[in-house]
């Protein structure tokens, strides 16, 4: 390629040579005139190209790039290359920035960027939702103007690393956020918000559970303790009285035993560590035994019926299902009044329209008001505290049922009207009805 300086010098030299030739042929004046004309022409060409360059640079793009041959072509190409390189670098930086923004948006926690005056620079969508910010209008506003909590203003002023502020947003009742401030370059701050609603709720549930368990264990223990103390104070008692006291203590300790058993069962079901046993369960035999148990519990005060076909069976864990069915039956016995006419309890097994097996326990008892039904399977939830305990319930029965059903992919349906009795239905998924005939038959694991 010919260097620019060489090509320009060549043009200049050729003008000079032509001018000298003309001067020799037509005289000095004509020679100078020719030189002037040549230089003028050269100048005009350069001016033309320069102005094209100027026009092009206003909006440089490949489509409008002038393509003169020779020296100016090189210059245009050089400028264009430099511009394109710059643009490519800028695109790369833009992409990277976009990537970072998207990453910050994708974070599950809220992030707010504040300048040194606590004015909002940027926030991700989670933070906007958490704090009630509106990214399209609120950039540049002080965050304390939007989140008007006196504690936040003080917190932003004085927060050190690892300080945490719990905040319950007024625009979203029931939610609890945990806020943290992280200072970065030149007095700017990152405000990070975590949603700790679920953690808090789990905490409350755990506290309630411990309080409930302690209370439930304490009540029978108080009775036993009272009798024991009485015996220590007055060692000699009429035999009749002593027997009665011991009887009551046995009754109370049975209650504690049952509660602890239920708790262990529940924790085993919840833990889910033990792999679930899948066996063919003979529902007919099981229902038969449940009816026997129920008759014993009822002591002839209820009419207990069974509508289960002799070939009824299901795939699942016999021990767990027995516990779940048994809880429903004993609930029915305990909540059905014994006054005349005697309460009627029916155990039934049928197939619903979707082909799933269905076990139901129907009673003619006191029924359950609609507002209690969704909460029945909560641990220690009681519709009527006094009644439930006097009949020997632990408050864990339906919680156990719920967990057993979860493990069997079954659902519990409760239908009731106060005063008109109720029906508890366990609905199994259709595939559990298909039992493998070769599997061992477990009528009752107990």
């Amino acid at each position, binding site marked *: 390629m010919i260097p620019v300086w060489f090509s320009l010098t060549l043009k200049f030299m050729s003008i000079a040579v032509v001018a000298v030739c003309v001067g020799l042929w037509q005289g000095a004046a004509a020679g100078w005139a020719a030189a002037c004309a040549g230089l003028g022409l050269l100048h005009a060409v350069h001016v033309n190209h320069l102005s094209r360059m100027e026009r092009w640079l206003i909006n440089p793009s490949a489509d409008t790039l002038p393509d003169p041959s020779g020296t100016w072509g090189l210059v245009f190409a050089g400028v264009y290359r430099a511009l394109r390189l710059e643009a490519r670098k800028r695109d790369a930086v833009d992409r990277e920035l976009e990537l970072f923004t998207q990453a910050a948006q994708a974070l599950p926690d809220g992030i707010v960027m504040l300048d040194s005056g606590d004015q909002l620079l940027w926030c991700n969508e989670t933070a906007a939702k958490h704090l*009630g910010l*509106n990214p399209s*209008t*609120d950039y*540049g*506003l*002080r965050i*304390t*103007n*939007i*989140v*008007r*909590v*006196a504690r936040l*203003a003080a917190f932003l002023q004085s927060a050190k690393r690892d300080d945490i502020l719990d905040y319950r947003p*007024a*625009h979203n009742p029931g939610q609890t956020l945990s806020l943290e401030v992280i200072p970065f370059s030149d007095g700017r701050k990152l405000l990070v918000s975590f949603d700790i609603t679920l953690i808090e709720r789990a905490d409350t549930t755990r506290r309630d559970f411990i309080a409930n368990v302690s209370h439930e264990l304490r009540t029978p223990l108080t009775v036993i303790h009272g009798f024991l103390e009485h015996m220590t104070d007055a060692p000699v008692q009429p035999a009749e009285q002593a027997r009665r006291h011991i009887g009551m203590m046995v009754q109370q300790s049975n209650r504690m035993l049952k509660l602890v058993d239920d708790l262990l069962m529940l924790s085993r079901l919840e833990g889910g560590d033990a792999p679930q046993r899948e066996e063919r369960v003979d529902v007919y035999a099981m229902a038969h035994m449940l009816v026997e148990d129920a008759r014993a519990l009822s002591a002839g005060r209820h009419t207990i019926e069974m509508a289960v076909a002799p070939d009824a069976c299901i795939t699942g864990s016999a021990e767990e299902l027995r516990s779940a069915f048994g809880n429903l039956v004993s609930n029915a016995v305990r909540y059905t009044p014994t006054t005349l006419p005697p309460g009627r309890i029916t155990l039934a097994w049928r197939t619903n329209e979707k082909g799933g097996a269905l076990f139901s326990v129907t009673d003619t008892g006191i029924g359950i008001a609609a507002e209690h039904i969704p909460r029945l399977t909560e641990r220690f939830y009681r519709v009527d505290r006094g009644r439930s305990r006097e009949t020997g319930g632990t408050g864990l029965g339906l919680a156990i049922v719920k967990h057993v059903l979860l493990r069997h992919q079954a659902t519990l349906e409760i239908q009731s009207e106060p005063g008109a009795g109720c029906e508890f239905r366990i609905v199994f998924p259709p595939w559990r009805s298909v039992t493998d005939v070769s599997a061992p038959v477990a009528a009752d694991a107990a």
Partner: protein
Amino acid sequence: MSNSEHTSKQFDADLEDIRSRVLQMGGLVEAQLMAAIEGFSSGGEAVIDQVLTAEPRVNSYEKEIDDAIVHVVARRQPAASDLRLIMGVSKIVTDLERIGDEAEKIARMARQIYARGALTIPRSIDVRQTGNKAAMMLRRVLDAMARLDAGEAEKIIAEDKLIDTEFRGIMRQLITYMMEDPRTITTALDIVWIAKAIERVGDHAKNIAEQVIYIVHGTDVRHTAAPPAALQGNA
């Protein structure tokens, strides 16, 4: 607004500081009102105390902001939009302080009702709902003030009518209640006061919304049936 640059950066800072403090005061009053309503529905002593102890802080906010306003007016002689901001803010502060007073009134009445040991509180759910609506209105008007959003302020002005209607509804039901069972009159009268206080909160929130419109557009929409036509184009 304070977004436009002044030669003196300090002036900008002063104006922004006043605006911030008004909104902080608003936040405090809002919390006070929510606590008062909560105190009414639950009777919790702690929340009621919270309302009563916030009162002196609200008052000191009012005095501080008034003082700051006098200083800015004396030193900077604000004009145009700055003057509107200052004028509007000084009226908003008064309204906020009154809302604080209403919240205090609700809390005192609630304590009285629960101290009397009233077993049933007539229309308590309706009153609580209307109260929450008024608190929501206050929160939104403060948002509109922070964002200088005149459109939102106009919507809030229209909503005040809703609270007025609900108030009249509660009144009618309470009257029926008192006629049926004269023993409830004492409690019902206390509830009348609470409902009235809530209705007043709605009015104050509406006043604040009007000041927000004045700050943004410079139009005075007070005591007009509908916003002037000039404004409707802007919103």
